[in-house]
């Protein structure tokens, strides 16, 4: 459960102040699949970074799973991020000199799992994205789509409640993009809340809910779609 109220984010440089988010309010419920669209520079990535606590904010209130994020120190935020949030990036961001196994291992290391637990989680996660045969490969030995699947495995290995994806299909061709989208949908069906930024209207339409950001604000902010209300009733 994620609640943002009037979040403000300003980037200050010597010359300009950019209001990347202004009075940004949003509520995302457990198990939702939210697609975020909007013009370039509208603040989508900033929103995702604030959500994932990679970026601080300058005003407003953000509660993640009942915790007021602005009250947490770096250690607590890192722990929360490590346990509850998985990140997927447009450019995959795998660590080039670690093999797939070690890449997926990264968040688990910070989690402090035992070696045995890590091993089984890594194998499961790679299995889930269909790459368990390539554990010892380096990222550079994989195609873009495969790399993104590793990134997804890495995000999933810690079984996070939220998956934040910033244009996960942006660097992939349409076939690969559909495969990745399918994978995300499966993950969502198993209960993980997903927030995905995308430029692809077709992919966005496949999500339960669409949010359009313009100029640092949700342009058509609406409560949960009636469809979902009915389903729950």
């Amino acid at each position, binding site marked *: 459960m994620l609640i943002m109220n009037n979040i403000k984010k300003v980037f200050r440089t010597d010359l300009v102040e950019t209001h990347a988010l202004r009075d940004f309010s949003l509520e995302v419920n457990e198990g939702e699949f939210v697609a975020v669209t909007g013009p370039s520079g509208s603040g989508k990535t900033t929103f995702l970074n604030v959500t994932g606590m990679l970026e601080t904010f300058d005003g407003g209130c953000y509660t993640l799973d009942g915790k007021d994020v602005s009250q947490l120190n770096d250690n607590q935020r*890192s*722990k929360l991020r490590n346990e509850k949030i998985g990140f997927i990036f447009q450019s995959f961001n795998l660590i080039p000199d670690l093999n797939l196994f070690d890449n997926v291992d990264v968040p688990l290391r910070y989690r402090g799992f035992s070696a045995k637990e890590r091993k089984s989680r890594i194998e499961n996660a790679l299995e889930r994205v269909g790459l368990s045969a390539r554990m010892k490969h380096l990222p550079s030995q994989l195609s873009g789509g495969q790399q993104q699947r590793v990134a997804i495995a*890495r995000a999933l290995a*810690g079984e996070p409640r939220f998956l934040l994806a910033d244009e996960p299909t942006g660097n992939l061709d349409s076939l690969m993009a559909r495969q990745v989208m399918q994978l995300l949908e499966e993950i969502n069906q198993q209960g993980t809340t997903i927030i995905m930024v995308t430029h692809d209207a077709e992919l966005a339409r496949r999500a339960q809910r669409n949010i359009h950001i313009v100029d640092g604000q949700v342009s058509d902010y609406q409560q949960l779609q009636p469809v979902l209300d009915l389903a729950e009733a």
Partner: protein
Amino acid sequence: MFAYYFKLSWLGIKRTPMLTALMVIAIGLGIGVSMTVLTVNYLMGKDPIPAKSHQLYHLQLNAMGKGPEWNYTADGYPWQVTYQDVQNVHRSEIPTRKTRSLATGVTIVPDNTIPNETGATPFLESTRAIDRDFFAMFDINFIFGESWNKQVDIDAENVAVINKELNEKLFKGENSIGKQIKLNAILYTIVGVIENWQPTPRFYDLNNGNFNSTERLFIPFSLLPIHELPSWGNNQGWKTETVNTYQDKLRSETTWNQYWVEITSRDQLAQYKEWLAGYISQQKKLGRFQSKKAGATLRNVNQWMEYNHVVSNDSSILVGLSFMFLAVCIINTIGLLLAKFLKRAPEVGVRRALGASRKAIFIQHLVDVTLIGLMGGLLGLALGQLGLVGVKNLYSSYSQLVYMDTSLIIAAIAISLGSSLLAGLYPAWLICRTNPSVYLKTQ
């Protein structure tokens, strides 16, 4: 978690071998140079006999007359003592042990029963004339036999103690007790063979080269007037006297002998000082010890070394300079570390996104630096050894100084770890503070 950080560091080193090599070289050079200088300096000033340095005292007497003072030392005392004083002072039974001492020399004529062997030709040998207690005072171990008995110090007898090396040369290392050697055409009987003994600095005689080799041959001091043993060391005088014969020299005010006592308690020391004061006032009546500064001083081993400036100011300045050089190397390393760490910033961004705290990133980078520091330290040790070989070749009198003991090796590693951690603090702090999101957008 540390094992994980070490693994990452190792991967990082493999990824940036040149940068790593540069840092290791920078730290290694700094450590190498400063360790070379530090080693020489440290061994110069090292307590050569830690177990006993506080209870061995070197005696100085100022027996000068009225008139010009002795300007060569800070307190106006000559370094050595006269023969007459040494003889008189030796009568006191207060010290636990005591020894007169003179640097002399003889011609050794090897035994002609072993013809044409190495060393069959006569050779000159530095010799020390001392009393029986000398070996026990300075903790010198015997391989065979022991020191001569007390009576020899009074009656004189042609006996000798040699060291292992000379025993090898003259007797092929076998037990030579009871055998005879010919010194200046006189037969001496070997009563003891000692281990090779090389205190650094050679504190028991700082008048004749602080870092020279010790003698290999020791004979009773009581033989001095009998064989008229010459002084191979310094002779210093202040009085205009005619010294034609050896007997003249024994009676003169020339200072050419040394005197050491072993004193084990405060009371004993006070008692001995009182005794010396008594001796001086008695001598005053005889017309000696007339100077304003007349008197006796006792200095223990470390005080004696300090008094003689065993560690020169130059070498202390050199230590300072070498550490400045180390500082320059560290500053260089900071630059290289910044380059290395910033190159890795995108990876740090990913790690942060995946849940690494700032602290975790900071520690990871310090481990990285520690590994580099360790390698730099090892290189520095190797370079330091080379440097010491260089010092040895330049200054032959330092040859005894040219080794690193365990404490220096530990110091080298500690200094290199410390300095690399120091170098790493700022870059590691910088990288852990950077905003991860900046590096996540593009790669």
